């Protein structure tokens, strides 16, 4: 089983990103489970979505306490409050303009900063960064499959379908090593 936590601020699309990732893994034949914080969530407050992926049915009904990977929409959220839910060598993709060295003090994590805002701007997406970050995440986590992800983004995006897909693919290509 692999466990992923997506962190963001209310309104940034972290929950949507969780659903899109779940849809993508589901279309690839995996069992998935995703749930997000709700109720007290408001625009601007920290929100999170949790995602489990497995090749057998998922029975766990509890929080993720040692995530294999995190996707963080806002580098100001990346502190001990959230990092304690990441495994010691977790992959963390973070939306940030800061260089990788800036995050080296945070521990053994593999932290990959991605300028999601720049990618979104390149694709006329304003401040909507979730498609770009999903592409970057797929590149660094080596899954899900980028073509499947782009198809899910295309079907799910309520507006600007082409820009969302282009943003997702650019995020992938720019981060792929």
């Amino acid at each position: 089983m692999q466990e992923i936590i997506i962190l963001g601020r209310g309104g940034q699309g972290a929950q949507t990103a969780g659903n899109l990732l779940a849809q993508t893994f589901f279309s690839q034949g995996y069992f998935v489970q995703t749930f997000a914080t709700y109720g007290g969530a408001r625009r601007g407050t920290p929100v999170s979505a949790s995602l489990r992926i497995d090749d057998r049915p998922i029975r766990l009904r509890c929080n993720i306490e040692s995530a294999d990977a995190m996707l963080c929409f806002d580098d100001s959220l990346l502190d001990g409050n959230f990092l304690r839910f990441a495994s010691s060598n977790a992959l963390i993709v973070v939306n940030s303009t800061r260089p990788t060295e800036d995050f080296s003090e945070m521990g053994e994590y593999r932290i990959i900063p991605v300028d999601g805002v720049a990618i979104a701007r390149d694709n006329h997406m304003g401040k909507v960064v979730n498609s770009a970050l999903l592409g970057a995440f797929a590149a660094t986590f080596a899954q899900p499959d980028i073509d499947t992800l782009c198809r899910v983004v295309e079907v799910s995006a309520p507006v600007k379908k082409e820009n969302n897909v282009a943003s997702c693919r650019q995020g992938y290509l720019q981060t792929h090593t």
Partner: protein
Amino acid sequence: MSYTAKRLLLTGNHAVAWAVKRVRPHVAPLYPITPQTPILEKLTDFQSKGELEGTELLTPESEHSAMAACISASLTGVRVFTATSSQGLLLMHELLHYAAGARARIVLFNVNRTPASPWGFWPDQLDSLSQRDTGWVQLYSESPQESLDTTIQAYRIAELIGVPIMISHDAFYVSHAMEPVEVPSQQQVDEFLPPFACDHFLDPKRGQSFGAPLDQQNWNRSRREMAAAMARVFAAVTDAGKKWGETSGRDYAPLECYRMDGATTVIVTMGSMCGTAREAVDALQDKGNRVGLLKVRLFRPFPVAALKEALAGVSCAIVLDRNFSCGLGGILHQELKAALYGLKPAPKIHGLLSGVGGVNVSVNKIKQWVSEYAGAVPVNESLWVE
């Protein structure tokens, strides 16, 4: 006969809405409340697309009015659905008693959420457990799939026995957890649920009535009749679960014994914590520990005889409660102790207030509690644990 079920990615709440769409109740009075609202939203979405034919959705001004509409609709002899949570269920309280006394065959889906105050949105079963004396059948669901399947089965049970049924799943971990769910075909559900017909129903042409004032003796008789009906529920739940298994491949029973063969210690719990407990049981068994899980799916009527049978010969039962009855303790713990009274040899029973307020109950915590309490001397009180 093979059917074409489809597998969709659904939250627990949307799985319930799909069940309702397949059941096609005649009347569905609903009032929104977090975290139930996605059930109502999905139903109105179906309706707007013309996919909820034959169902009249009513949106009255409160849960109290929604239940009043449920009762009157049900007494005309039609299928009825409603859903609520927490404060909404508590506002219905007066009419829950009324519905049960009038033998209204209502199916209500409740999303277990902490009752205020303090305000919260978290999974806790006190809202429905505090309605345990209202005369409703109560079933607890572990997963979105089980919530869908149980909603369909509930109509069969309610209509056979003449009782209202409340199904509950935990907020958040089930209501808002999205996962693959098998949605049965329309034909499959139509064949499982024959057209509803009942002997007694309101019709101006017939001149029957419900709920008229009675003398003491006849009021007493109404409770005896309800008791007799409740006594038939266990068999009806068993039968509906088996029959649904024949058509869907997914069997259900009032109680589920998971890896209990040869188990000396058994975790007893309800709702979403069962899923996490299964993982804990597997991990403990892998290390040679004889630990099993007893999942209580049917809580009212409390399956006393079946619980005695399941726990006979077990040396220790550890009850995990996600509720707290102030001044008594965990409700499942207290009811289990009463049910096993007189059983010899009876297991030692530990009651752990483990998930109260929706606090996270992880596999590691369950494993830790088993190692801590399996050999310990039990106390009468339920214990707060971290």
